[in-house]
């Protein structure tokens, strides 16, 4: 039905804009329940944060591309970076919450949240970059 595509410089100051653009795109179509809009906003923000970080940490000035596609069945958001990639299977799980060591881990929840908050989360990563595809069914 409609597509929105934006490109942002790899700076964290642009995260709020990405969330805002997504909210507007979804509000215009009234496609998802409010709580699912919030879930998708967070998942997209997490994926975009990782993409920005991949560029920043590797001295890349290239833009991060985000595409929102809405059709009769689903909302799909694709986040593309040109970073060096990562293996999602190699992400170390946190210690159990009952372990005092859990408090040593402030980072590393982003991918978990992306997976838990969306209906489908696909991470296609190579040394040429990473494409994250997040889908919510309507």
């Amino acid at each position, binding site marked *: 039905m409609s597509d929105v595509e934006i490109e942002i410089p790899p700076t*964290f*100051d*642009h*995260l*709020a*804009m990405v*969330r*805002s653009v997504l909210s507007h795109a979804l509000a215009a179509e009234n496609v998802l329940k409010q*709580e699912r809009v*919030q879930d998708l*906003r*967070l998942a997209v*923000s*997490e994926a975009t*944060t990782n993409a*920005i*970080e991949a560029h920043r940490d590797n001295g890349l000035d290239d833009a991060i591309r985000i595409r929102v596609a809405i059709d009769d069945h689903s909302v799909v958001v694709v986040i593309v970076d040109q970073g060096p990639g990562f293996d999602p299977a190699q992400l170390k799980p946190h210690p159990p*919450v*009952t372990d*005092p060591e*859990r*408090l*040593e*881990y*402030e*980072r*590393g*929840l*982003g991918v*978990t*949240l992306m997976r*838990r*908050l969306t209906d489908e989360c696909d991470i296609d990563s190579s040394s040429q970059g990473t494409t994250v595809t997040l889908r919510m069914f309507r």
Partner: protein
Amino acid sequence: MLVIEPTFEVARYGRWAVMRVSGEIDMATAPKLRQQIQNVTSRNPDGLVLDLEGVEFIDSTGLGVMVGAAKRMRVADGSLRIVSSQAHLSELFSLTRLDEVFDLFETLDDALEDVPAGGAA
């Protein structure tokens, strides 16, 4: 830019500190939250209450800052309590199992119920 800059209001309650956080907490703004918490905890309160009722968005970075705050308070033999009645935040704490790490309260009154109001921090 469309950023809703976070704001932080800090009050003293007996020997505890209360910080009301509002706005959006993400990778861009989480360092400000971390700095504010460090400022407050450096005064060695017996406990810190983070009131998140005014928070409109928080991501994993923000949650991580709160994990750091919990650690900081634990090391100092203090307590961290978090106030939020927002369903979305409750869902986040539950998904990440941080609801088993944090002391969560629905209201600020509940969080302060057993805290003596007297005594300087």
